[in-house]
């Protein structure tokens, strides 16, 4: 496995990335999540190009007010845009319409091209907003927020346990990987390598399963009977209402301006 892939698979720092306190952090997490949802729905269903473009501008504004780390954000955006680029290249050829130009006898359609640009704008606008308003929340806060927003309890618990134990499991992985390295294991493209990685993954699964049993035991020891209790200090303030109202008026404006009729 290439070094950089291995790193991004097992390094979990998203939740402890410290970011500078910004205006965005003064808003209630619930308001931030809800605003993002409204924004995303408004932008995604648009049938015009100007609305996603406006959305992208707004997303830049959010990113600025969240004072996102420039390089980290760029890295994440590029990761997504890799997929988008492929799609933008493919769509003009797969959608029928007025031919714009030909490559090896395949016609690139104008409609496909416009559609692709629309998708690229929408994706970037939504992801950048997500990174600014929701990505700046600590992962466990996000869990609390979703619980407060009445997202099904099971999903919230799943998220919270994942956040809690991803790091533990990744430490376990690194420990085993180090033990392999210490015994002069160098990955090559041969059977030995693949078998060893198979053992590694298998061991990781077994250990995780055993750990989950121990965690459940620990929960039983403290009287667990099917319910987790969450404490938080969220407080809805006037500015949160204002944020939501402005998002809602953006949505109303989009509807009124006919962005959803083809």
């Amino acid at each position, binding site marked *: 496995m290439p070094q950089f892939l291995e790193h991004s698979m097992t390094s979990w720092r998203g939740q402890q990335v410290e970011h500078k306190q910004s205006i965005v952090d003064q808003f209630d997490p619930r308001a931030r999540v809800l605003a993002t949802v409204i924004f995303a729905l408004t932008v995604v269903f648009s049938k015009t190009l100007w609305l996603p473009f406006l959305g992208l501008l707004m997303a830049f504004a959010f990113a600025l007010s969240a004072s996102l780390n420039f390089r980290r954000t760029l890295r994440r955006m590029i990761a997504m845009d890799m997929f988008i680029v492929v799609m933008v290249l493919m769509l003009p050829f797969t959608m029928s319409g007025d031919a714009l130009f030909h490559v090896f006898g395949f016609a690139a359609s104008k409609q496909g091209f416009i559609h692709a640009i629309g998708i690229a704008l929408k994706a970037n606008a939504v992801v950048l907003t997500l990174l600014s308003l929701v990505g700046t929340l600590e992962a466990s806060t996000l869990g609390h927020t979703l619980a407060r927003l009445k997202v099904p309890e099971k999903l919230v618990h799943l998220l919270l346990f994942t956040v809690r134990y991803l790091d*533990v499991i990744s430490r376990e992985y690194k420990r085993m990987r180090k033990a392999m390295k210490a015994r002069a294991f160098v990955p090559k493209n041969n059977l030995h390598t693949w078998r060893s990685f198979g053992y590694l993954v298998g061991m990781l699964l077994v250990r995780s399963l055993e750990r989950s049993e121990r965690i459940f035991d620990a929960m039983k020891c403290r009287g667990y009977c099917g319910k987790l209790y969450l404490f938080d200090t969220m407080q809805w303030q006037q500015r949160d209402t204002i944020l939501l109202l402005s998002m809602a008026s953006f949505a109303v404006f989009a509807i009124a301006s006919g962005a959803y009729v083809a």
Partner: protein
Amino acid sequence: MTALIRMDQVSYSYPVRGMVLDQVDMSLFAGEKISLEGGNGAGKTTLLNILVGLNKPKSGGVFAFGRERKVETDFIEVRAKAGFLFQDPDDQLFCPTVLEDVAFGPLNQGKSPDEARQISIEVLDCLGMAGFEDRVTHQLSGGEKRLITLASVLAMKPEVLLLDEPSNALDKAARLRLIEVLQSLPQAMIIISHESTFLDALVTRRTRLERGKVLDL
């Protein structure tokens, strides 16, 4: 005087392995702090698991807080009265924040959220961990995790403490701090540990688990 917790001729074996516990007798009386020593894989953790009903003995009986405990429902009360500190703090700290973790036990015991919060803050304060309430559990240091797990066990007001290698992987300062805390606690304890300095400072009686038997030292 009757024992708080007693094991009577308990045997246990895992499916693929021979006898781990072989007709073990052991008892813990009020005010006692006893050590349980023994090599890796001797079955110390298994023994504590049996005391709180996480593993069920193949034969023999477990008596706790005045009566014999057999089935899962019997052990619910035992687990509330015997606080079990797990070997790996990561297994025990599963809530996102410290406050939630410490309050988890009291809430399960039927306390209101406000009461549970109050109890948790008191216990944290008592262990010198005031101000940790809103910290995220997985970002704590090893020593901090240990004390928080102890707090979450103590918050249930147990009569007995079962400590599985509490001083494991602690640095010297954290260990001294833990000794100090444990010395100040009135509960009867069974302490699994290999470290004689740690044990010398705490225990009133030493036992050793060897070849499936518990021996007095």
